[in-house]
């Protein structure tokens, strides 16, 4: 099963809608709650990043019985130094993001923590593509 969403640019009020929809679908399909939570958190942080750091983008979620694949692609500025970006507490987020409870530099570390595989493809000035895999708990 394949789900696709467009993450709107600069719209903080809608950030998280796609993750909530994915969560509801996985729940309906009867996936274990721990798996659902890991998928939802990883996708939510990714979605928030696309709104704060890029100008929205596309999310694709592939659901298999044994694993969930998520791909978040944006046409934002790209990430100059991935190692640095993965460091807990590193953030270039503007003050506005902090007012919303994000921008503490915990997003990518959270994504790493909750996924089984994380690959980041990024090109400066072109965009970023996050590929995430969560294996379904047996």
């Amino acid at each position, binding site marked *: 099963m394949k789900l696709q969403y467009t993450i709107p640019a600069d719209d*903080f*009020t809608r*950030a*998280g809608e796609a*993750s*909530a929809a994915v*969560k509801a679908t996985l729940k309906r399909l009867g996936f274990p*709650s721990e798996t659902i*939570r890991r998928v*939802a*958190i990883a996708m*939510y*942080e990714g979605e*928030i990043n696309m709104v704060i750091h890029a100008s929205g983008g596309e999310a694709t979620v592939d659901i298999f019985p044994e694993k969930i694949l998520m791909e978040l692609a944006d046409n934002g500025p790209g990430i100059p130094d991935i190692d640095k970006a993965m460091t807990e507490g590193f953030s270039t987020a503007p003050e506005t993001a902090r*007012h*919303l*409870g*994000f*921008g*503490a530099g*915990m*997003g990518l*570390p*959270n994504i790493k*923590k909750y996924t089984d595989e994380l690959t980041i493809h990024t090109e400066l000035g072109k965009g970023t593509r996050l590929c995430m895999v969560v294996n379904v708990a047996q």
Partner: protein
Amino acid sequence: MTIADIKRILNAEVLCGEQHLEKEVHNACGSDMMSDVLAFVKDQSVLLTGLVNLQVVRTAEMMDMLCIVFVRGKKPTAEIIALAEEFGIVLLQSPLRLFSACGLLYQNGLNG
């Protein structure tokens, strides 16, 4: 304790979810940083926060929480209340500050 107990202890007003007040809760967390909630929370079912926006409700829903307490008398918008209602999350509003609200609940047996 139940959500109704929280309402009483924190002298709170119910903004939505009146029908869920008898639900049992055992753990809570207090934070204004949603990424921290997403990173460290395990099975806490109550979120106390001074932050008021839609992302607070979305974060609570991601974590399967049952109740959000907005401290310092902060008033959420109709849109925030509507989203909480859609998710079946109880919204409470307390005049207390975050530290005092957490302390009182802890004192009354709610764990971290």
